[in-house]
């Protein structure tokens, strides 16, 4: 993930006496990560137009507003303004969550010629069979959960590190998976906000959830699983 360092105007204006403070409190902000494939590379499952808007506009807006909220938080903490610190939490959760979720989502997808849709092998494949019976049954469950989620949100395949098993969860809006439990690690997240599919699938979310499996990057999910379950 790309970040850059940014000292706020306020910090700079404090001058030489606060060098130590400036260094220890320098604010890290975030910038839009590159997609690991071209916008059109997931067609026909997901159109290039959707991918471009989703990445350049939606994800960028979450990052912009997350950075804004972080700067305000930084300032509020320096002033000791607790009420503003607390007030900023919803914007941080929404926009920071949007940034986290989309960063995972891009990695969860891959063009077919780069392995998109290829079933997971190795330990994740075994774990899926153990927990859900088969990959087909897992896919059915995730698709059904995603289709019935009210409003905007995400459906996840996660690893519960404490219980050492795979779980399916949904989260509302841009809540990241960790809001459902501190031991949950996301392996695969599918965006079911309407902006993720509307230009192509309109009101038929189940068709989007049927086709997205053709470009799911199970290799990425397997990599996370192996690292986190070791």
């Amino acid at each position, binding site marked *: 993930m790309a970040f850059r360092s940014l000292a706020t105007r306020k910090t700079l204006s404090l001058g030489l006496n606060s060098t130590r403070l400036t260094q220890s409190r320098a604010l890290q902000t975030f910038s839009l990560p590159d997609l690991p494939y071209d916008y059109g590379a997931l067609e026909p499952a997901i159109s290039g137009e959707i991918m471009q*808007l989703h990445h350049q*506009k*939606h994800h960028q*807006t979450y990052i912009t507003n997350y950075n804004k909220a972080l700067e305000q938080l930084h300032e509020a903490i320096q002033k000791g303004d607790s009420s503003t610190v607390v007030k900023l939490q*919803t914007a941080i959760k*929404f926009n920071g969550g949007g940034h986290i979720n989309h960063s995972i989502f891009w990695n969860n997808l891959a063009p077919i010629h780069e392995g998109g849709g290829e079933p997971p092998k190795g330990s994740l494949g075994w774990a899926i069979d153990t927990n859900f019976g088969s990959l087909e049954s897992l896919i059915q469950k995730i698709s059904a959960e995603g289709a019935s989620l*009210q*409003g*905007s*949100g995400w459906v996840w395949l996660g690893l519960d590190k404490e219980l050492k098993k795979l779980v399916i969860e949904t989260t*509302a*809006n*841009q809540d990241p998976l960790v809001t459902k439990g501190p031991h949950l690690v996301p392996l695969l997240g599918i965006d079911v*906000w*309407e*902006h993720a599919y*509307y*230009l192509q699938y*309109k*009101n038929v979310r189940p068709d989007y959830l049927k086709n997205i499996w053709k470009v799911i990057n199970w290799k990425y999910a397997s990599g996370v699983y192996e690292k986190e379950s070791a």
Partner: protein
Amino acid sequence: MATSQNSALLPSQAKFELKPPPYPLNALEPHMSQATLEYHWGKHHKTYVENLNKQIVGTELEGLSLEDIVVVSYNKGDVLPSFNNAAQAWNHEFFWESMKPGGGGKPSGELLDLIEKDFGSFDQFVEEFKSAAATQFGSGWAWLAYKASEKDKKLEVIKSVNAVNPLVSDYFPLLTVDVWEHAYYLDFQNRRPDYISTFMEKLVSWEAVSARLEKAKVQAAK
């Protein structure tokens, strides 16, 4: 909408109908496209009505008015399965009737007086309404509603998540804008603020809002 008389006679056939907007589907062009209305009314709204009809067959909700089903199935926040479809069926009908071809502009008469009293000025109200609509996280609605308690009668701007609406808080809804992405994505894509401005400047039917205020005051006085 099914009348209670019909439903008493023919309970198994008591069904809500998909009421069309009070204008042709291309009448809000270019501000809201025909394609948007074809999907939004012809698919989304229709699906809510159809699913509601399926859900309430043979339940104690059958035969109630749509408003009553919304309030009863909200169940003080512990929502019953039919709440989402009932409230969305109600919300969409209310939304279509909140707009008209050649809408926008400014209200007049008592509605304008109340807006100026409760928000300071019409422009301040517009700012507050737009801000509520723009900052509703995820899917939902923004509303102008009339709150009539014993000690206080006033207008309020509120926002609500997914299917929730002011009926469940015992407010009288006067105006709404749908900020689910399906309401504006074909015409505006990610630019929700542009959609909201267009709604306020070109589409709002202030006659409808005034008529609703009149009705709300009568009901509140009962």
